[in-house]
Protein backbone atom coordinates (compact mmCIF):
# COMPACT_ATOMS: atom_id res chain seq x y z
CA UNK A 1 0.00 0.00 0.00
CA UNK A 2 1.59 3.30 -1.06
CA UNK A 3 2.94 5.36 1.84
CA UNK A 4 1.62 8.37 -0.04
CA UNK A 5 -1.90 6.97 0.32
CA UNK A 6 -1.59 6.82 4.09
CA UNK A 7 -0.20 10.34 4.18
CA UNK A 8 -2.93 11.56 1.88
CA UNK A 9 -5.67 10.04 4.02
CA UNK A 10 -4.18 11.46 7.20
CA UNK A 11 -4.08 14.90 5.65
CA UNK A 12 -7.60 14.56 4.20
CA UNK A 13 -9.18 13.55 7.48
CA UNK A 14 -11.21 16.12 9.39
CA UNK A 15 -11.86 15.30 13.00
CA UNK A 16 -10.53 11.83 12.27
CA UNK A 17 -13.21 11.28 9.62
CA UNK A 18 -12.42 10.53 5.98
CA UNK A 19 -15.20 11.48 3.60
CA UNK A 20 -16.18 9.81 0.36
CA UNK A 21 -14.73 12.61 -1.71
CA UNK A 22 -11.33 11.68 -0.28
CA UNK A 23 -11.87 8.04 -1.22
CA UNK A 24 -12.57 9.09 -4.78
CA UNK A 25 -9.48 11.29 -4.89
CA UNK A 26 -7.36 8.53 -3.38
CA UNK A 27 -8.63 6.02 -5.90
CA UNK A 28 -7.86 8.40 -8.70
CA UNK A 29 -4.40 9.37 -7.44
CA UNK A 30 -3.17 5.97 -6.28
CA UNK A 31 -5.19 3.46 -8.30
CA UNK A 32 -6.34 1.68 -5.16
CA UNK A 33 -9.84 0.20 -4.81
CA UNK A 34 -12.46 1.58 -2.46
CA UNK A 35 -12.42 -1.55 -0.27
CA UNK A 36 -8.64 -1.30 0.06
CA UNK A 37 -8.84 2.40 0.86
CA UNK A 38 -11.38 1.69 3.57
CA UNK A 39 -9.13 -0.86 5.17
CA UNK A 40 -6.20 1.57 5.17
CA UNK A 41 -8.40 4.31 6.64
CA UNK A 42 -9.37 2.09 9.53
CA UNK A 43 -5.89 0.67 10.03
CA UNK A 44 -4.51 4.21 10.28
CA UNK A 45 -6.88 4.87 13.18
CA UNK A 46 -9.09 7.11 11.03
CA UNK A 47 -12.79 6.56 10.49
CA UNK A 48 -14.86 6.62 7.32
CA UNK A 49 -17.33 9.49 7.49
CA UNK A 50 -19.95 7.20 6.01
CA UNK A 51 -20.03 5.31 9.32
CA UNK A 52 -19.82 8.35 11.60
CA UNK A 53 -23.23 7.60 13.08
CA UNK A 54 -22.05 4.16 14.23
CA UNK A 55 -18.60 5.18 15.42
CA UNK A 56 -19.53 5.07 19.10
CA UNK A 57 -21.48 1.86 18.61
CA UNK A 58 -18.83 -0.18 16.82
CA UNK A 59 -15.71 1.75 17.82
CA UNK A 60 -12.81 1.88 15.36
CA UNK A 61 -11.61 -1.59 16.35
CA UNK A 62 -15.05 -3.05 15.70
CA UNK A 63 -15.44 -1.26 12.40
CA UNK A 64 -12.06 -2.61 11.27
CA UNK A 65 -13.15 -6.14 12.15
CA UNK A 66 -16.29 -5.67 10.08
CA UNK A 67 -14.16 -4.33 7.23
CA UNK A 68 -11.95 -7.41 7.32
CA UNK A 69 -14.89 -9.82 7.58
CA UNK A 70 -15.96 -12.14 4.79
CA UNK A 71 -19.62 -13.07 5.16
CA UNK A 72 -21.52 -15.49 2.95
CA UNK A 73 -25.24 -14.91 2.45
CA UNK A 74 -26.81 -18.13 1.26
CA UNK A 75 -30.00 -17.12 -0.50
CA UNK A 76 -30.89 -13.74 -1.92
CA UNK A 77 -34.66 -13.63 -1.61
CA UNK A 78 -36.63 -12.24 1.30
CA UNK A 79 -34.13 -12.68 4.10
CA UNK A 80 -31.24 -12.26 1.68
CA UNK A 81 -32.36 -8.88 0.36
CA UNK A 82 -32.60 -7.49 3.88
CA UNK A 83 -29.29 -9.04 4.89
CA UNK A 84 -27.48 -7.60 1.89
CA UNK A 85 -28.81 -4.10 2.55
CA UNK A 86 -28.05 -4.06 6.26
CA UNK A 87 -24.69 -5.82 6.18
CA UNK A 88 -23.48 -3.60 3.33
CA UNK A 89 -24.50 -0.44 5.15
CA UNK A 90 -22.82 -1.67 8.33
CA UNK A 91 -19.55 -1.99 6.43
CA UNK A 92 -18.93 -5.74 6.19
CA UNK A 93 -15.91 -5.80 3.87
CA UNK A 94 -16.82 -8.77 1.69
CA UNK A 95 -20.26 -10.20 0.99
CA UNK A 96 -20.42 -13.46 -0.93
CA UNK A 97 -24.01 -13.83 -2.10
CA UNK A 98 -25.17 -17.23 -3.33
CA UNK A 99 -28.49 -17.79 -5.15
CA UNK A 100 -29.34 -19.40 -8.50
CA UNK A 101 -32.65 -17.62 -9.05
CA UNK A 102 -34.12 -14.65 -10.86
CA UNK A 103 -36.72 -12.29 -9.50
CA UNK A 104 -40.38 -12.97 -10.22
CA UNK A 105 -43.47 -10.88 -9.60
CA UNK A 106 -44.50 -12.61 -6.41
CA UNK A 107 -41.18 -11.58 -4.86
CA UNK A 108 -42.22 -7.93 -4.84
CA UNK A 109 -44.16 -8.15 -1.59
CA UNK A 110 -41.12 -8.96 0.55
CA UNK A 111 -37.82 -9.12 -1.35
CA UNK A 112 -36.40 -5.65 -1.01
CA UNK A 113 -33.98 -6.07 -3.90
CA UNK A 114 -36.87 -6.85 -6.23
CA UNK A 115 -38.26 -3.98 -8.26
CA UNK A 116 -40.32 -3.82 -11.43
CA UNK A 117 -37.07 -3.29 -13.33
CA UNK A 118 -35.36 -6.30 -11.87
CA UNK A 119 -38.00 -8.88 -12.72
CA UNK A 120 -36.38 -11.70 -14.65
CA UNK A 121 -32.89 -10.68 -13.53
CA UNK A 122 -30.50 -12.76 -11.46
CA UNK A 123 -30.93 -11.92 -7.78
CA UNK A 124 -27.22 -11.94 -7.00
CA UNK A 125 -26.46 -9.54 -9.85
CA UNK A 126 -29.12 -7.11 -8.68
CA UNK A 127 -27.66 -7.41 -5.20
CA UNK A 128 -24.19 -6.51 -6.45
CA UNK A 129 -25.57 -3.44 -8.20
CA UNK A 130 -27.44 -2.34 -5.08
CA UNK A 131 -24.33 -2.62 -2.94
CA UNK A 132 -22.32 -0.67 -5.51
CA UNK A 133 -24.84 2.14 -5.09
CA UNK A 134 -25.10 2.16 -1.32
CA UNK A 135 -21.55 1.26 -0.30
CA UNK A 136 -18.85 0.76 -2.93
CA UNK A 137 -16.33 0.03 -0.17
CA UNK A 138 -17.93 -3.40 0.14
CA UNK A 139 -16.69 -6.17 -2.16
CA UNK A 140 -19.51 -8.31 -3.50
CA UNK A 141 -18.96 -11.76 -4.95
CA UNK A 142 -22.08 -12.96 -6.70
CA UNK A 143 -22.44 -16.70 -7.19
CA UNK A 144 -25.26 -18.00 -9.35
CA UNK A 145 -25.41 -21.33 -7.54
CA UNK A 146 -27.61 -23.44 -5.34
CA UNK A 147 -25.51 -24.49 -2.40
CA UNK A 148 -25.63 -28.17 -1.53
CA UNK A 149 -23.56 -30.89 0.07
CA UNK A 150 -21.31 -31.29 -2.98
CA UNK A 151 -20.43 -27.69 -3.77
CA UNK A 152 -20.81 -26.17 -0.32
CA UNK A 153 -17.19 -26.49 0.73
CA UNK A 154 -16.03 -24.71 -2.43
CA UNK A 155 -18.68 -22.01 -2.24
CA UNK A 156 -17.96 -21.17 1.39
CA UNK A 157 -14.17 -21.45 1.32
CA UNK A 158 -12.49 -18.47 2.91
CA UNK A 159 -15.59 -17.14 4.64
CA UNK A 160 -15.68 -16.12 8.30
CA UNK A 161 -19.43 -16.32 8.93
CA UNK A 162 -22.26 -17.86 6.94
CA UNK A 163 -25.82 -16.55 7.02
CA UNK A 164 -28.83 -18.74 6.27
CA UNK A 165 -31.23 -16.96 3.95
CA UNK A 166 -32.68 -20.10 2.43
CA UNK A 167 -36.32 -20.98 1.97
CA UNK A 168 -36.34 -24.73 2.38
CA UNK A 169 -35.69 -27.09 5.24
CA UNK A 170 -33.71 -29.71 3.29
CA UNK A 171 -31.41 -26.96 1.99
CA UNK A 172 -30.94 -25.68 5.52
CA UNK A 173 -30.02 -29.11 6.79
CA UNK A 174 -27.37 -29.37 4.09
CA UNK A 175 -26.07 -25.89 4.85
CA UNK A 176 -25.86 -26.70 8.55
CA UNK A 177 -23.97 -29.86 7.74
CA UNK A 178 -21.49 -28.09 5.44
CA UNK A 179 -20.83 -25.35 7.98
CA UNK A 180 -20.26 -27.92 10.67
CA UNK A 181 -17.78 -29.74 8.45
CA UNK A 182 -15.98 -26.49 7.69
CA UNK A 183 -16.03 -25.24 11.29
CA UNK A 184 -17.83 -22.07 10.24
CA UNK A 185 -20.32 -20.25 12.44
CA UNK A 186 -23.75 -20.18 10.84
CA UNK A 187 -26.43 -17.61 11.61
CA UNK A 188 -29.63 -19.52 10.96
CA UNK A 189 -32.91 -17.80 10.24
CA UNK A 190 -36.33 -18.90 9.08
CA UNK A 191 -39.67 -17.12 8.82
CA UNK A 192 -43.27 -18.04 8.09
CA UNK A 193 -45.93 -15.36 8.44
CA UNK A 194 -46.02 -14.10 12.03
CA UNK A 195 -43.44 -16.60 13.18
CA UNK A 196 -39.73 -17.00 12.88
CA UNK A 197 -36.59 -18.27 14.47
CA UNK A 198 -32.93 -17.33 14.49
CA UNK A 199 -29.93 -19.02 16.02
CA UNK A 200 -26.16 -19.15 15.91
CA UNK A 201 -24.83 -22.58 15.09
CA UNK A 202 -21.32 -22.55 16.48
CA UNK A 203 -18.46 -24.07 14.51
CA UNK A 204 -18.59 -27.87 14.66
CA UNK A 205 -22.07 -27.83 16.19
CA UNK A 206 -25.26 -29.26 14.73
CA UNK A 207 -27.87 -26.90 16.13
CA UNK A 208 -29.70 -26.41 12.84
CA UNK A 209 -30.30 -30.11 12.39
CA UNK A 210 -31.64 -30.23 15.93
CA UNK A 211 -34.12 -27.47 15.12
CA UNK A 212 -35.49 -29.67 12.37
CA UNK A 213 -34.95 -32.96 14.11
CA UNK A 214 -38.46 -34.08 14.68
CA UNK A 215 -39.39 -36.69 12.15
CA UNK A 216 -42.40 -35.48 10.29
CA UNK A 217 -43.61 -35.99 6.81
CA UNK A 218 -41.04 -36.10 4.08
CA UNK A 219 -40.06 -32.51 3.38
CA UNK A 220 -42.61 -30.87 1.21
CA UNK A 221 -41.97 -27.66 -0.63
CA UNK A 222 -44.28 -25.25 1.11
CA UNK A 223 -45.40 -22.24 -0.89
CA UNK A 224 -44.11 -19.02 0.65
CA UNK A 225 -46.36 -17.45 3.24
CA UNK A 226 -44.53 -14.30 4.24
CA UNK A 227 -44.94 -10.56 4.35
CA UNK A 228 -42.37 -7.78 4.36
CA UNK A 229 -42.19 -6.99 8.05
CA UNK A 230 -41.93 -10.59 9.21
CA UNK A 231 -39.04 -11.17 6.86
CA UNK A 232 -37.34 -7.93 7.87
CA UNK A 233 -37.75 -8.67 11.59
CA UNK A 234 -36.03 -12.04 11.31
CA UNK A 235 -33.30 -10.72 9.00
CA UNK A 236 -32.63 -7.81 11.34
CA UNK A 237 -31.96 -10.14 14.22
CA UNK A 238 -29.73 -12.23 11.98
CA UNK A 239 -27.67 -9.12 11.22
CA UNK A 240 -27.42 -8.42 14.95
CA UNK A 241 -26.14 -11.95 15.49
CA UNK A 242 -23.64 -11.69 12.63
CA UNK A 243 -22.24 -8.55 14.21
CA UNK A 244 -22.13 -10.17 17.65
CA UNK A 245 -20.28 -13.16 16.25
CA UNK A 246 -17.77 -11.01 14.37
CA UNK A 247 -17.18 -8.71 17.32
CA UNK A 248 -17.44 -11.44 19.95
CA UNK A 249 -20.21 -9.70 21.87
CA UNK A 250 -21.77 -11.85 24.56
CA UNK A 251 -24.22 -13.26 25.21
CA UNK A 252 -24.28 -15.70 22.34
CA UNK A 253 -26.30 -18.72 23.40
CA UNK A 254 -24.16 -21.80 23.05
CA UNK A 255 -27.03 -24.18 22.79
CA UNK A 256 -30.17 -22.28 22.04
CA UNK A 257 -32.16 -20.18 19.67
CA UNK A 258 -34.66 -17.30 19.53
CA UNK A 259 -38.30 -17.91 18.73
CA UNK A 260 -40.25 -14.99 17.28
CA UNK A 261 -43.97 -14.61 17.64
CA UNK A 262 -44.87 -11.36 15.92
CA UNK A 263 -48.57 -11.96 16.42
CA UNK A 264 -48.06 -11.92 20.19
CA UNK A 265 -45.14 -9.56 19.66
CA UNK A 266 -42.71 -11.55 21.69
CA UNK A 267 -39.23 -12.88 21.23
CA UNK A 268 -38.10 -15.67 23.47
CA UNK A 269 -34.78 -17.37 23.93
CA UNK A 270 -35.01 -21.15 24.16
CA UNK A 271 -32.13 -23.23 25.41
CA UNK A 272 -31.73 -26.90 24.76
Amino acid at each position, binding site marked *: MPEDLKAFLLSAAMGGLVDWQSYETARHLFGVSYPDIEQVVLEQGLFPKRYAAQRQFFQPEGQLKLCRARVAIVGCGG*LGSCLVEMLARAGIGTLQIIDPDVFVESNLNRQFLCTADSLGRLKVEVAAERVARINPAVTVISLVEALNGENGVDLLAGMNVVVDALDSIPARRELGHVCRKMNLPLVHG*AVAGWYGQVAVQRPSDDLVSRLYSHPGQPEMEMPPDNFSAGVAAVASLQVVLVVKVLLDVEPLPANGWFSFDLR*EVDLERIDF
Partner: protein
Amino acid sequence: MRITVKLFASFREGRFKVESREIPSSSYLVGQLVADLELPVEKIGVLLVNGRHAVLEHRLEEGDVCALFPRIGGG
Protein backbone atom coordinates in the same frame (compact mmCIF):
# COMPACT_ATOMS: atom_id res chain seq x y z
CA MET B 1 -50.58 -35.53 37.56
CA ARG B 2 -49.88 -32.04 36.40
CA ILE B 3 -47.56 -31.00 33.63
CA THR B 4 -46.84 -27.67 32.02
CA VAL B 5 -47.33 -27.32 28.29
CA LYS B 6 -45.73 -24.46 26.36
CA LEU B 7 -46.75 -23.83 22.80
CA PHE B 8 -44.89 -21.65 20.35
CA ALA B 9 -45.54 -19.86 17.10
CA SER B 10 -48.52 -21.11 15.08
CA PHE B 11 -49.23 -23.84 17.63
CA ARG B 12 -50.52 -21.08 19.90
CA GLU B 13 -53.32 -20.17 17.53
CA GLY B 14 -56.64 -21.29 18.93
CA ARG B 15 -54.85 -22.80 21.92
CA PHE B 16 -52.59 -21.09 24.48
CA LYS B 17 -49.03 -20.01 25.19
CA VAL B 18 -48.61 -21.89 28.44
CA GLU B 19 -50.92 -24.08 30.39
CA SER B 20 -50.80 -26.24 33.46
CA ARG B 21 -52.53 -29.42 32.49
CA GLU B 22 -53.95 -32.36 34.38
CA ILE B 23 -53.06 -35.65 32.73
CA PRO B 24 -53.81 -39.26 33.61
CA SER B 25 -51.18 -40.71 35.88
CA SER B 26 -50.20 -43.73 33.92
CA SER B 27 -48.72 -44.19 30.46
CA TYR B 28 -49.50 -40.74 29.15
CA LEU B 29 -47.23 -40.26 26.18
CA VAL B 30 -46.25 -37.04 24.49
CA GLY B 31 -47.96 -38.35 21.37
CA GLN B 32 -51.21 -38.50 23.32
CA LEU B 33 -50.76 -34.90 24.40
CA VAL B 34 -50.18 -33.89 20.77
CA ALA B 35 -53.36 -35.68 19.75
CA ASP B 36 -55.35 -34.20 22.63
CA LEU B 37 -54.23 -30.72 21.64
CA GLU B 38 -55.07 -31.51 18.03
CA LEU B 39 -51.62 -30.45 16.94
CA PRO B 40 -50.48 -31.52 13.47
CA VAL B 41 -47.76 -34.08 14.15
CA GLU B 42 -46.15 -33.59 10.77
CA LYS B 43 -45.61 -29.92 11.49
CA ILE B 44 -43.64 -30.39 14.69
CA GLY B 45 -40.17 -28.86 14.45
CA VAL B 46 -38.85 -29.19 17.98
CA LEU B 47 -40.33 -31.18 20.84
CA LEU B 48 -38.75 -30.67 24.23
CA VAL B 49 -39.49 -32.21 27.60
CA ASN B 50 -37.67 -30.36 30.36
CA GLY B 51 -35.45 -28.71 27.76
CA ARG B 52 -34.34 -31.92 26.12
CA HIS B 53 -35.37 -33.49 22.85
CA ALA B 54 -38.12 -36.04 23.26
CA VAL B 55 -40.00 -38.41 20.99
CA LEU B 56 -43.73 -38.94 20.75
CA GLU B 57 -43.36 -42.17 22.70
CA HIS B 58 -41.88 -40.37 25.67
CA ARG B 59 -43.86 -40.97 28.84
CA LEU B 60 -44.67 -37.78 30.71
CA GLU B 61 -44.18 -37.51 34.44
CA GLU B 62 -45.40 -35.24 37.19
CA GLY B 63 -44.01 -31.73 36.87
CA ASP B 64 -42.68 -32.13 33.33
CA VAL B 65 -42.51 -29.10 31.08
CA CYS B 66 -43.31 -29.98 27.49
CA ALA B 67 -42.54 -27.39 24.79
CA LEU B 68 -43.72 -27.73 21.20
CA PHE B 69 -42.52 -25.71 18.23
CA PRO B 70 -43.68 -25.98 14.64
CA ARG B 71 -41.09 -26.29 11.92
CA ILE B 72 -40.48 -23.00 10.19
CA GLY B 73 -38.84 -23.16 6.79
CA GLY B 74 -39.48 -20.02 4.80
CA GLY B 75 -37.15 -17.16 3.97
